[in-house]
C-alpha cells in the first residue's frame, strides 16, 4: 500500500513520464535541427581555428567544423561549443540505491538526468543507445539547470543525479544544475567513469554532494582494449574526490574472463585501502551481455561472491554485490559488530537501523551522508 509520503514522488514521477525521453532503443528519428550550443568552459584555442579540449584526458584537438571524441562538443570557427547544455535526452525519478549509492540518504529519490554522449566507448555499455550517439541522433528536450532543480524539488526528491551516460561530457550543465539545486536545498550527485581532467573536476566538486565512479577495471590493458580510455587518470580522480571530502563510492562491473581475476581484484582492494581508505564503499555488479560484448555470459554469482570475499579479506569495510536481487551482500553491515544496519531488497530500503549515522548496537560511526 502506498504511504502518503510516497504519493507525491509517485505522482510527480507519473508526470515526468510524460516528458519526452530519448532512447535509441525506440530509435525515434529526431528532426534535422541545428543545435545552438554554448561556449564550452574548458578548452584552449590553437592556430588555424583549431581547439584543444581540456575537459578530459583525451585532450582532443579538434579542427573547425569537427567534434571531439565525445560527439557533443563542436568547433565552430575556432570557438568550442558544448551542444548538450540544457538538452537532456532522459529524465527519471530513481531511488538513490539504483545509482548505486548505498551510503547517501538511503531510501531517498534522485531526479536523474543525462544528455547524449560519452568520452569513452565501453564495449559493454548498458546505455549505449544514448551514450554512444550524438545529441542530434536522439530525441532530446530543453531543460535549463533551474528547471531541473525545480523539477526535483517538486518531485520531492532531495537529490539530483547526473547519470546514465557520462556526466563529464555535459560537465558545464552539471555545474550549473548543481548550483541551482543547492539554492533550492537539493543536493547533486554524479555517476561517472571518472575520466576527467583535474581542473574541471576540482572546479565542480565543491558543488557536489557525492560522486560514484565506475571503475571499469584495475588494468590499463582493459581500459585500452575494452573501454578506449585510461586507468591512471581515473585513479587520480578517485584520489581527488576522496581528498575533497565529497562522498565517494566505487562500482566495478565484473565481466567474466576480462576483469574478474583474483589477482586483479586483490590489487584493486589493496589500492583502495591504501589510497582511499577502507571505508569507501565498493560495489561489484553483475554483467549482462549487451552492445558489443554479447559473446560473454552473465557474471556467475560465485564470481561476484569470490570478489566480495577477497576484498573483505583485504580489509575493505563496505563491499556490496549488485544486480543480484535478494543477495545478502546488498545489506550494510556494521564493520565493528556485524549488525545489519540497512536492509535492502533490490533498490528498496526495507529497514534502516542507523542512529545518527552510527551502529545502534556498538555505536560505531558509519561513514556516509545520512541526513
Amino acid at each position, binding site marked *: 500500500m502506498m504511504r502518503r509520503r510516497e504519493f507525491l514522488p509517485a505522482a510527480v514521477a507519473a508526470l515526468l513520464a510524460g516528458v519526452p525521453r530519448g532512447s535509441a532503443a525506440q530509435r525515434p528519428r529526431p528532426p534535422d535541427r541545428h543545435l545552438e550550443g554554448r561556449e564550452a568552459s574548458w578548452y584552449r584555442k590553437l592556430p588555424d581555428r583549431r581547439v584543444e579540449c581540456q575537459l578530459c584526458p583525451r585532450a582532443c584537438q579538434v579542427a*573547425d567544423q569537427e567534434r571531439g571524441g565525445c560527439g557533443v562538443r563542436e568547433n565552430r570557427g575556432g570557438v568550442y561549443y558544448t551542444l548538450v547544455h540544457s538538452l537532456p535526452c532522459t529524465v527519471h525519478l530513481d531511488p538513490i540505491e539504483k545509482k548505486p549509492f548505498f551510503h547517501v540518504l538511503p531510501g531517498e529519490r534522485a531526479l536523474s538526468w543525462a544528455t547524449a554522449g560519452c568520452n569513452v566507448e565501453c564495449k559493454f555499455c548498458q546505455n549505449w543507445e544514448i551514450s554512444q550517439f550524438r545529441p542530434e541522433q536522439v530525441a532530446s528536450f530543453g531543460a535549463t539547470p533551474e528547471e531541473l532543480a525545480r523539477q526535483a524539488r517538486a518531485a520531492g526528491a532531495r537529490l539530483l543525479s547526473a547519470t546514465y551516460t557520462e556526466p563529464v561530457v555535459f560537465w558545464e550543465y552539471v555545474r550549473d544544475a548543481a548550483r541551482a539545486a543547492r539554492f533550492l536545498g537539493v543536493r547533486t550527485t554524479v555517476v561517472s567513469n571518472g575520466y576527467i581532467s583535474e581542473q574541471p573536476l576540482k572546479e565542480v566538486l565543491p558543488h557536489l554532494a557525492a560522486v560514484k565512479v565506475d571503475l571499469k577495471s584495475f588494468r590499463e590493458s582493459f581500459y585500452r582494449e575494452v573501454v578506449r580510455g585510461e586507468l591512471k587518470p581515473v585513479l587520480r580522480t578517485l584520489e581527488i574526490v576522496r581528498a575533497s571530502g565529497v562522498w565517494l563510492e566505487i562500482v566495478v562491473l565484473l565481466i567474466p574472463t576480462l576483469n574478474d581475476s583474483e589477482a586483479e581484484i586483490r590489487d584493486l582492494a589493496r589500492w583502495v585501502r591504501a589510497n582511499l581508505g577502507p571505508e569507501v564503499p565498493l560495489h561489484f555488479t553483475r554483467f549482462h551481455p549487451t552492445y558489443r560484448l554479447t559473446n560473454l555470459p552473465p557474471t556467475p554469482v560465485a564470481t561476484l561472491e569470490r570478489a566480495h570475499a577477497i576484498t573483505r579479506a583485504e580489509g575493505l569495510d563496505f563491499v556490496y554485490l549488485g544486480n543480484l536481487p535478494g543477495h545478502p551482500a546488498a545489506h550494510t553491515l556494521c564493520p565493528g559488530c556485524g549488525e545489519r544496519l540497512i536492509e535492502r531488497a533490490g533498490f528498496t530500503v526495507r529497514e534502516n537501523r542507523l542512529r545518527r549515522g552510527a551502529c545502534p548496537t556498538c555505536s560505531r560511526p558509519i561513514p556516509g551522508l545520512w541526513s
Partner: protein
Amino acid sequence: MSPRVTRRDLARLAGLAALAGPLSPPAAAAPRARVALATLTAESLTPATARTALEKALVAATGAASAGAALRALFKSTDTVGIKLNCLAGRGMSPRPELVEALAALLGEAGLSRDRIIVFERSARELRRAGFTPGERDSYRCVPIDNDYDPEPSTSGSIGSCFARLASTTCTALVSFGVVKDHDLAGISCGAKNWYGIIHNPNKYHDGNCDPYLADLLRHPYVRHKVRLNILDGVTAQCHGGPAYRPDATWPLGQLAVSTDLLAADAWAWQVIDAERVRRRLPTLAAAGRPPRWLATAQQYGLGTGDPTQVEIVRA
C-alpha cells in the same frame, strides 16, 4: 521499416560478393589501381562540360568503350545505387551538383530508374548547404540519412557502429563522390573518409590518424562489397585547414578523378595535396604528423591500392 540486418545477412552478403568475382569484362580488364583524370576547371564548368569530363574519366578508368558501357558493367539495372556525397564543408568544398547530376543522368541512361538512384548525405542541412535539395529530382532521389540507422551495431575490426540503413539495406551498390581536401586528423578527406558519414559514431574513430579505424570501416562488407566506383571532384582542392572550407588553402586543381579501386583515388589525392603543400612551403602531411597511414592498412587488408607508387594515372 526494413528488416534488421543480422550477422547471417552480413555473411551472405560477403559470400555473394566473393562468388560474384571480379567485375564484368570492361572493368575487369582495367588495372585495379587505375585512376583516370579528366580536366575540368571552375571557369569552364557547365552541365555539359561536367558530363563530358565524367564520361571521359569513366571510359579511361574502366577501359570500356563508352561511359554507358562502363556503368552497365558496374551496375545492374536492378541495383539501387547510393551516391554518398561529402558535404561537410558546404558549398565551397563539396561535390558540385553539375557533376553529381551528370552521374545520375548517365546511370539513368545505363538502365537504372530514377527511384534506384539515391544521392545521400548525413543530413538535409548538409545537403542544402552544398547546393542539393532533398526530394525527388529529375534523375535521382536526394535523401538525407537523418538518423535512420540500423538498430544494432555491426563490428568490423576495431569499429562497432550502427550503419545508415541507406547503405546497409536500401542500396545494393554504392558510389563515393568526394572531394580533394586536407583533413586535420585523417590526413586527407577524399573518397574513403567519406564513408565515415554512414556510421552513427565517427567521432569515436579519429585517434591515431584514423588508423586502423578507417581501414576497418572500409573492410566492412557494406563498404567493401558494395562500393563500385570512387569519384573525386578535384575542380578545386584544399591542401590545409580541412575538413572545414578554408578558401585561402584552396587552389584550382582542375581535375576530376575516377577509379574503381577503393583506395587508389585517395592515394593520388594524397600526392597532389602534398605537392601543393610543398609548393606553399607547408610541411607534407607526414611531416605534419598526419600521414593517411590508414591507406597502407587498408591495402594490407587487400581492399585496394593505397600506395601512391602503385597507382597508375591515366589522362582521359
